[in-house]
């Protein structure tokens, strides 16, 4: 079937398979996210912090990286990214249920503190911003070994106020390291709106100061995100150095399960965000493009819900860590 010009433009050279997969990744993350909120409201998970509204750009980057070869230093909103890279819904359900088998931390850390050595996803703690320097160091090591691995690191726009942001950008740019700084700008750092965090509307403005590209992308436009990710990864891979990518995303939920954003945001504002949700927009686009057909999305959904049900059941019978493991892994147990 020949595509119209609009279709070609909208698809941007992405084949139907890629587009469908992208949508599936986004939907899978969203459904898992919703499930985790349910577990939280049921009192079975003490904490959740959501990726809802951030999925498109995460999926875009995830799909453009080579899992296990490239490196990722994520932050706590990167649920969708970790799924694309190969973590599973069950992994994260184990985490919110604080079970020993949680691959992120064995139930030691709060949920959404991602990490998985097998997938080159480094462990993340809570202190905002530190991961940018880790990513830079990872890229330095790749460079010194002459590898063309790319390191992706992400952060909220709030986190870019930390000194580590500047120190990492500076060093990565000096040595043209293959690191991508992805800023997921949702306009809020917990309750603090961007106007109180930064003097200009765009974090991307700061790229100039380091002589690197600063790219802004609409995080609600999945296809644009894909294109941006592809370009930044290519650039890094061919040795042209870092890119600062700023994705304008939405925080569709409160900051975390401990927060209530109605205290500091208007109802109208919250409503408007819902309208812009990339998941719905992307579905409509794909249907328009004939990539998703009648019933496709619903089928995907049931399949994913089934996966989730099974994951939840399995996670629920998985044991808690036993108290006598608490003293392990302070130092190497084996000396190497």
């Amino acid at each position, binding site marked *: 079937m020949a595509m119209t010009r609009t279709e070609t433009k909208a698809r941007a050279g992405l084949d139907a398979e890629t587009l469908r997969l992208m949508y599936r990744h986004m939907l899978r993350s969203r459904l898992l996210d919703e499930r985790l909120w349910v577990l939280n409201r049921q009192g079975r998970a*003490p*904490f959740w912090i959501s990726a809802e509204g951030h999925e498109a750009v995460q999926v875009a980057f995830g799909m453009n990286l080579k899992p296990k070869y490239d490196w990722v230093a994520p932050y706590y909103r990167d649920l969708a990214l970790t799924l694309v890279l190969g973590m599973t819904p069950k992994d994260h359900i184990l985490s919110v249920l*604080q*079970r*020993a088998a949680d691959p992120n*931390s*064995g*139930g*030691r*850390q*709060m949920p959404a*503190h991602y990490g998985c050595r097998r997938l080159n996803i480094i462990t993340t*703690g*809570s*202190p*905002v*911003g530190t991961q940018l320097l880790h990513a830079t160091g990872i890229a330095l090591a790749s460079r010194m070994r002459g590898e063309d691995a790319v390191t992706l690191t992400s952060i909220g726009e*709030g*986190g870019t*106020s*930390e*000194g*580590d942001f500047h120190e990492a950008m500076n060093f990565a740019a000096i040595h043209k390291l293959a690191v991508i700084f992805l800023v997921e700008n949702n306009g809020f*750092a*917990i*309750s*603090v709106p961007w106007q*109180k*965090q*930064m003097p200009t509307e765009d974090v991307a403005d700061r790229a100039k100061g380091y002589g690197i590209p600063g790219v802004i992308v609409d995080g609600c436009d999945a296809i644009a995100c894909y294109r941006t990710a592809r370009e930044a990864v290519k650039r890094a891979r061919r040795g042209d150095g870092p890119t600062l990518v700023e994705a304008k995303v939405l925080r569709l939920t409160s900051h975390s399960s*401990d*927060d209530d954003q109605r*205290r*500091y945001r208007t109802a109208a504002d919250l409503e408007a965000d819902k309208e812009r949700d990339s998941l719905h927009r992307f579905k409509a686009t794909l249907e328009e493009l004939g990539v998703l057909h009648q019933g496709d999305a619903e089928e995907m959904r049931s399949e994913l819900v089934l996966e989730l049900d099974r994951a939840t059941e399995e996670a629920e019978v998985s044991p*808690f*860590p*036993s*108290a006598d*493991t*608490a*003293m392990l892994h*302070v130092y190497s147990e084996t000396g190497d």
Partner: protein
Amino acid sequence: MPQKSYIEAIRDGIREEMRRDERVMILGEDVGAKGGVFGVTEGLQKEFGEWRVLDSPLAESLIVGVAIGAAMNGLRPIAEIQFQDFIMPAVDQIISEAAKIRYRSNGDWNVPMVLRSPFGGGVHGALYHSQSIEAIFAHIPGLRVVVPSNPYDAKGMIVAALRDPDPVLYFEHKRCYRAIKGEVPDGEYTVPLDRARVVREGQDIAIFSYGMMVHASLEAGDRLAADGFSCEVVDLRSLRPIDRTAIVASASKCGKVLIVQEANLAVSVASEVAAIIAEDCFDSLDAPVMRLGGPEIPAMPFSPPLEQFYLVTPDKVEAKLRELAAY
């Protein structure tokens, strides 16, 4: 006298002092519309406006560094660090700058700043929302480090801190916020920033602790009282300078000593208390000094069995007390 919670007492102290002294202002993450993540500053931005209750960017070195500058230019800032765990990026400004400015300028300059931050675990906060990191500041000359354990002290000490001409680190145990209630006078009073307090008098064992651990100690002490052992419970309140006189007095009187804290023990406040006693109470001790604290692991884990393993509970205090009693 009105009954207030610990968190209300802190807020009352701040609010009253802000009404009395327009130099007092607050700078921190989410302190404004949200009123802080625990609600300590709730309502204050409404009353005092956006400048005096100022939401900062997410940058702790900024919060403290700007507070230091503002303090040198006549303000009395409260720098709020959202969790003690996140004080680390500000350590340079605290230790290299705030602590040393009076000394290095030969008394020409000073930093009347208060740094407030919640600490402690037992709230499913996991590794980075449960830490007790006061020891590293208690080591540093030039700082004052205080930890109120009850609403009366909480209010009196925040007011005293705001009037003190030197940097005061004021640490709040987050489990105290709503769990601990007590009588708090309306209106102005202060509590000294360098004096321990005997919370309960006793003869047999002196327990030294601070923050939430004072309550664990009291509870454990009660259990021993039933068996005829009387514990003296000393609330250190000030970790720097520490009240050596009070420590020596209670330790000498009782002859047996237990030191209780939530932080891990190595090179900590408990170490210092034990060292003071080892130096000054040689002739009056009837048993080895004992310390009880968090285990030597990097921080408190999330999963309930692990968190429980970490926590210093009344049961654990009681067990140590019985060991001492039997010595």
